[in-house]
């Protein structure tokens, strides 16, 4: 049944168009001459193509697609259309999935140029150079997308198509050639006029899902980016013109490039608001990222991240979600959900150009042209310091932004000043705030080395129902105090220890600090605490009491072993605590 459907699918795609040359044959030789050299020569001689400077937005209520001319500052056209995918700018066309399938609209006026009527085809990607437009699709058979196809239009009509039994990725058209990634590691270079496969490349040690043109070069990749040069012959990223940014934990883990084998997401997909944006740069065998920066767009924030190290250059916070972004040397052009456009300066993050489409959009495809629009305002020299930018982002109250705020906390913690310690304590103390952010801040507080007065001041706070105050984060503060060897705070720590308002999660930190800072004079109070609660089974309290055992050992040494063994041997002591205390006694004896 499925094979019959597959055959019908092939016919549906292949019949309307010519089928001269072959492509995607499994036996086609890789890097074979003279095809490979001919292709490399043709690509090297290809001139940079004139990319349009437009923003294509998807608007709702009523459903429509809007084209905004960046250079002229006007809405060029608006057409009624129910977009099922985000739009793609592909040379002379705008391609998107609509109610009746994949549609290519003319960029100049929004009218329909051609359609791919096969209902099983899902839009993967599209590209164009003004003469040819290439569209790749996945063939959806009962939810299974194992095969794909590419369609190439010359002008406003499909000239040819090729089907692959394996998935095809995001193609690019350049210098009269169509470059198609497929089957995760292969690249087929087809003649844009005939569809004949001219050369085939294969990467042995990485995945390739997307090909694209930037300036005078053709790039491809997935986890990193290759510039197509002769060094690709080796088939390895190790010896080819290749770059990938340093790995680091980012909220939502957005990929460097959207998965080249997955259909274009729906306009309201969160992926349009949470993504990495960048542009390639460099020449010849040197591949880098424009301004050595990778931009993380996270709803209302833009983080300018150093491509080579785990560092942030600046962070911009906006008053609306960002639904489209594109990068060129000098900065990032973004579109927000209210239909406003901004360019953020690569060096400072300041907004240096603004425009209004005056149409709220849920997704936007931005083609900035070869360069960003000319700046209308110069970047101010005195933008607030980076630590202040990060602190302001960390405390924005929006529950969707937890990941971005926690990232800001992580970078904020890299600053060692006492002021930053105070800021981190303030974030850690917000018990009514977002847990993800609070935890990141509290974790950072525990490792601080500067800012003892801020730690002391925070430890003076007390929870009070009548005063409307919440308990300070005494566990994290205690660990920081231990790090800073603040012996004078021991009485405050004991007060928090014995205050029932102190959250159980803070107790382990307090005991750990008492173990470091305490003297034999306080050992009795720790022991009394351990005895009083030794029968309790709350896992967090058990953990805290184990820390109390450790603290006793730190203060009194091996002499405390019989005490702990005695508590551990009492059958009324909570079973998990007994195990902890036995382990501690054993380890310390050894």
């Amino acid at each position, binding site marked *: 049944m499925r094979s019959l459907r597959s055959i019908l699918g092939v016919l549906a795609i292949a019949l309307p168009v010519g089928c001269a040359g072959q492509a995607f044959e499994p036996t086609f030789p890789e890097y074979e001459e003279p095809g490979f050299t001919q292709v490399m020569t043709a690509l090297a001689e290809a001139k940079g193509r004139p990319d349009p400077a437009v923003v294509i937005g998807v608007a709702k209520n009523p459903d429509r697609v809007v084209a905004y001319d960046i250079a002229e500052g006007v809405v060029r056209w608006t057409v009624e259309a129910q977009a099922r995918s985000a739009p793609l700018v592909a040379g002379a066309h705008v391609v998107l999935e609509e109610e009746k399938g994949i549609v290519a609209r003319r960029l100049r006026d929004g009218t329909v140029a051609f359609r791919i009527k096969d209902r099983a085809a899902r839009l993967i990607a599209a590209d164009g150079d003004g003469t040819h437009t290439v569209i790749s699709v996945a063939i959806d058979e009962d939810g299974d997308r194992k095969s794909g196809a590419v369609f190439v239009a010359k002008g406003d009509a499909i000239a040819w198509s090729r089907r692959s039994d394996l998935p095809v990725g995001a193609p690019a058209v350049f210098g009269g050639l169509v470059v198609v990634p497929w089957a995760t590691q292969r690249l087929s270079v087809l003649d844009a006029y005939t569809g004949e496969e001219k050369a085939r490349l294969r990467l042995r040690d990485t995945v390739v899902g997307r090909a694209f043109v930037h300036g005078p070069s053709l790039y491809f990749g997935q986890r990193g980016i290759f510039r197509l040069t002769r060094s690709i012959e080796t088939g390895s990223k190790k010896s080819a013109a290749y770059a990938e940014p340093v790995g680091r934990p980012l909220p939502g883990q957005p990929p460097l490039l959207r998965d080249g084998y997955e259909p274009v997401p729906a306009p309201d997909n969160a992926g349009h608001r949470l993504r990495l944006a960048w542009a390639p740069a460099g020449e010849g065998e040197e591949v880098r990222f424009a301004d050595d920066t990778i931009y993380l767009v996270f709803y209302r924030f833009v983080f300018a991240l150093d491509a080579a190290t785990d560092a942030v250059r600046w962070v911009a916070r906006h008053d609306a979600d960002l639904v489209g972004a594109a990068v060129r040397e000098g900065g990032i052009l973004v579109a927000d959900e209210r239909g406003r456009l901004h360019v953020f300066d690569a060096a400072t993050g300041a907004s240096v150009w603004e425009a209004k489409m005056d149409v709220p959009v849920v997704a936007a495809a931005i083609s900035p042209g070869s360069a960003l629009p000319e700046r209308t305002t110069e970047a101010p020299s005195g933008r607030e310091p980076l630590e202040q930018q990060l602190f302001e982002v960390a405390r924005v109250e929006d529950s969707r932004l937890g990941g971005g705020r926690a990232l800001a906390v992580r970078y904020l913690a890299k600053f060692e000043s006492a002021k930053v310690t105070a800021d981190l304590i303030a974030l850690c103390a917000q018990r009514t705030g977002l847990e993800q952010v609070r935890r990141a801040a509290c974790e950072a507080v525990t490792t601080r080395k500067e800012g003892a007065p801020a730690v002391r001041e925070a430890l003076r706070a007390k*929870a*009070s*129902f*009548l*005063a*409307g105050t919440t308990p300070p984060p005494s566990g994290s503060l205690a660990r920081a105090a231990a790090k800073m060897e603040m012996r004078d705070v021991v009485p405050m720590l004991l007060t928090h220890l*014995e*205050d*029932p*308002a102190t959250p*159980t999660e803070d107790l382990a930190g307090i005991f750990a600090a008492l173990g470091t800072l305490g003297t034999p*004079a*306080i*050992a*009795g*109070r720790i*022991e*009394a605490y351990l*005895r*009083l*609660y*030794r*029968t*309790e089974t709350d896992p967090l*309290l058990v953990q805290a009491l184990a820390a109390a055992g450790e603290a006793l050992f730190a203060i009194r040494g091996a002499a405390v072993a*019989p*005490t702990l*063994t*005695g*508590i551990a*041997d*009492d*059958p*009324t*002591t909570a079973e998990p605590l007994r195990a902890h205390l036995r382990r501690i006694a054993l380890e310390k004896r050894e």
Partner: protein
Amino acid sequence: MRSSTRMWAVIAVLLCPSSSLAQSTPKPESRAAATPTSDPKAEVEALRAEGGPKAAAAIAAKVEAGLPAPALDVAIAALGTIGGPVATKSLEGLTKHRRAAVRRSALENLVRAKARSAPAFAEALLDDPSPEVRTAAVRAIESLGLDAMRRAAPQLERALEKGLAEAAPLLGKMARPNEVARWTGRLDAEGFERMSPALRIVLTRADLPAPTRTALVEKVGVLGSASAKQFLRDLATELPKGSAVRSAAQKALELDTAEAAKKTETAPKSEPPRAAQKENGR
């Protein structure tokens, strides 16, 4: 082996010099304490039955040494029953226990033991993190009598402001004329919602001067909120006929009705709808 380690544990507790609880507890010398069994709850019950200061000391020592929850509950009740300085000291310590139920029970038993410190602890526990304990603190203060209530009045007022509704009736019962006058002076619609149970009690208290109470009723009348009006209607029907407060409530309601009528009369008459105008024109 086990008995020797247990002996170590007992010695450690007794010798522990810096534990405030250990310091306060004399060595247990009762018969039940000297013969521990594998059932701490039964041991505590035996000590409770024994009674007296020695049993209290033995129970307090067991509390300090750590008891499983059911045995601790029995121990707290036993300390409350036996009473005395040792029991009181132990119960005071337990008002800071991590479990709210233990703190609540410790306070209740401090009151039961007629501990001199009970009012101070009850007052302090109005600030407890747990609503369960705060409510128990209000009840404890109430059961301790007017002096305790008067002493805790400022804290009770703050607790009521923070939403501890149980504090309102106590405030109503103990308020002096000057306090009622103070409330009247600063009463607003929001405060009325919180204070109304206290005000209701105040207004039925014959020991307060009538002018103080009628002034309060007049202020409620001025508030004009729906709940204030309902409050006045209740007073006007529930209080005995001829009482000054009832009359003041009726008067306030009449005044409100008259004001409303005056407003209706003076309001500019609205123009008839355009459609109606057209129809009239025809």
